[in-house]
């Protein structure tokens, strides 16, 4: 049992942090958000940093790193509030393709690893909320492959992606097994829009869109990839909270009212102590999330839901309180804190909000509790 980072992990963290420091200041982020969140050029810079194939197997040209390396990268991207669909395209997408038909997935995994393709999950259906088995999109077999019909919402950077990974029912009836398919953007109708955190997403309508079958009976693979997404969201949230708290501490020590720094007021000091508590509980559970990704499905899903409950609570509390501690300036667009707050708010929705995961933990509650249960 140890929570030290290896030298390689520290070097990886430093490399990402250096790029954020040098090339992704708040001004750039702010300008990107104002432009509607276009992100492909930022993604390209992450590719140049060598991060695209981080978790892709070396047989496809990736680096084959594990969950802790992914966590380290996500923490730094969160700290920098980096506007790029990195987690979706480079962590969740490879997880969705892992275990699929190699003839279909191998070329895509190679293109993910070398950064030449941006392929994102398109999972969200209207009315499904956070249920992975609520899939109405259908797949019909046709000469030479499959054709999909349905609409998926909130595909990250959906108008810039080259292709989508899409779950669909492999038959006309509601209980038909769920398969995973790759659909190229050119074969879909795409409606893009900004999201509340200054990023960009798209609704993707499939109408007789030709698709490649990655895997049939894919619910387990989707759940596993969603857990990879939860761990990524947790780590990103920790990085973002870390930076937001540091920013707030600095503000409290410089902003003066009644002739003294506002950091001298006990009401605000205790609020900051509570914020620190929320942050450290979140960091603890982010570690837990990443370290539990390799467990068998029942333990993994229970652990990841527990982590998301903690992160959801912490991100909301830290976000809200850091805005409050900034006072009036905190609710302006020019203040970086407000942008961190918005991103933290969006991250609570990623792969299930707090209430959803409380339900999951409740369902999975067993007779033993604790980290080693």
């Amino acid at each position, binding site marked *: *049992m*140890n*929570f*030290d*980072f*290896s030298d390689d*992990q520290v070097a990886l963290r430093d490399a990402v942090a250096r790029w954020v420091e040098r090339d992704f200041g708040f001004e750039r982020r702010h300008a990107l958000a104002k432009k509607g969140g276009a992100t492909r050029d930022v993604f390209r810079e992450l590719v140049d940093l060598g991060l695209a194939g981080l978790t892709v197997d070396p047989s496809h040209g990736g680096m084959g790193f594990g969950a*802790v390396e992914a966590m380290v990268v996500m923490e730094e991207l969160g700290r920098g509030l980096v506007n790029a669909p990195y987690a979706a395209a480079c962590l969740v997408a490879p997880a969705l393709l892992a275990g699929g038909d190699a003839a279909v997935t191998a070329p895509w995994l190679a293109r993910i690893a070398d950064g030449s393709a941006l392929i994102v999950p398109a999972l969200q259906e209207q009315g499904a909320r956070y249920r992975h088995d609520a899939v109405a999109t259908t797949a019909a077999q046709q000469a030479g492959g499959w054709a999909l019909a349905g609409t998926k919402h909130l595909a990250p950077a959906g108008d810039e992606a080259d292709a989508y990974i899409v779950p669909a029912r492999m038959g006309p009836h509601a209980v038909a097994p769920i398969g995973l398919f790759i659909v190229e953007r050119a074969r879909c109708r795409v409606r893009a829009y900004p999201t509340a955190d200054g990023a960009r997403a798209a609704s993707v309508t499939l109408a007789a869109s030709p698709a490649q079958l990655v895997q049939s009976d894919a619910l387990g693979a989707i759940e596993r990839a969603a857990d990879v997404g939860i761990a990524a969201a947790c780590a990103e949230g920790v990085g973002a909270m870390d930076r937001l*708290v540091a920013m707030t*501490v600095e503000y*409290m*020590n410089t902003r003066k009212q009644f002739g003294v*720094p506002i*950091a*001298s007021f*006990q009401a605000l*000091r*205790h609020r*900051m*102590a*509570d914020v*620190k*508590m929320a942050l*450290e*509980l979140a960091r*603890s*559970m982010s*570690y*837990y999330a*990443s*370290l*539990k990704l390799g467990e068998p499905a029942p333990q993994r899903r229970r652990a990841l839901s*527990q982590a998301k*409950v*903690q992160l959801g609570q912490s991100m909301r509390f830290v976000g809200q309180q850091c805005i409050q501690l900034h006072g009036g300036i905190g609710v302006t667009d020019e203040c970086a804190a407000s942008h961190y707050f918005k991103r933290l708010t969006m991250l609570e929705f990623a792969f299930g909000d707090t209430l959803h995961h*409380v*339900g999951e*933990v*409740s369902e999975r*509650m067993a*007779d*033993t*509790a*604790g*980290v080693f249960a």
Partner: protein
Amino acid sequence: MDLNFTPEETAFRQQIRDWVAANLPADISHKVHHALHLSRDDMQRWAKILGKQGWLGWGWPKEHGGPGWNAVQRHLFEEECALAGAPRVVPFGPIMVAPVIMAFGTPEQQRRFLPGIASGEVWWSQGYSEPGSGSDLASLKCRAERRGDYYIVNGQKTWTTLGQYGEWIFCLVRTSNEGKPQTGISFLLIDMKTPGVSVRPIIMLDGGQEVNEVWFDNVEVPADQLIGEENKGWTYAKYLLSHERTNIADVNRAKRELERLKRIAKAEGLWDDRRFRDQIALLEVDIVALEMMVLRVLSAETSGKQSLDVAGLLKIRGSEIQQRYSELMMLAAGPFALPFIREAMEAGWQGDHVGAAHCAPLASTYFNYRKTTIYGGSNEVQRNIVAQTVLGS
């Protein structure tokens, strides 16, 4: 990064588990698992069993007769004891005063006091708080005046936990009024049988006698019972507080009590009530998160590679969780938490319970646990400390 214990640590855990299973008296663990009243004899019996094995001072280094375990091993020992239903070791001797005697006592004091602490033979109490000195402990007034080979002690201590059983008491006393309040305090060991020492019970809101007032009326204390130097007592007290930082979170006991909460909820027909069950789920998340935070601290202490500023958070969170599980247990009992029959909280009572037997002590425990966010430095004082660290100002 690795969440798993090493094979050596796992084997160590198993060794402890086997030993506890073979040596923890069943009547004692029964009381602990059912929150029934523990007598002085129960607590001391277990302390002496540990003492015989050399484990009552489980955090002690080998040179003083301890097992010399590292932070992870100590944690595993505490966890195995807690999960098996061992009573919490009364901390004043082995956890609190012993490390101070080891660090600042003379070899003669170490020879004189440590064996009785290690064996569990001598019951120690703590004399810190006073009626006018709670959170502001350094303002304490209990006076010790040097006269020849003695200190003459006059004053009052309060909130002395289980002081009614105490044989010795370590006290912070005022030996000087010069300079800052902190610089006039000394650390004195006092035999409670000395003439002039009197102990008066304070009855708590749950009806129990857990804490006491201790009065000192011209008590003669031999000067060789002063620890370290006169007027340096505050430094030793701070050293004491910095010791055993993770233990205070009490996460192992919280894990055990969460299971009891689940059993009570099932017995009360609440397991399928989503509103109630979700509250248990939230508590379960709180406990896992606290455990992870404790493990991070242990890992940092063991490897020495990181410095973590989360120790102050452990007491706050741990105590909040203790209050929460006691609250949920009481709520689970519903109206049957209301009967308050003291005999029903004793093991082996043959009378008629109102409602299920497990309901009898739940309100009492809930009332009693309000102390957890107050003692050991109130949670508000802890927040001051955390804020100081975070804000650096």
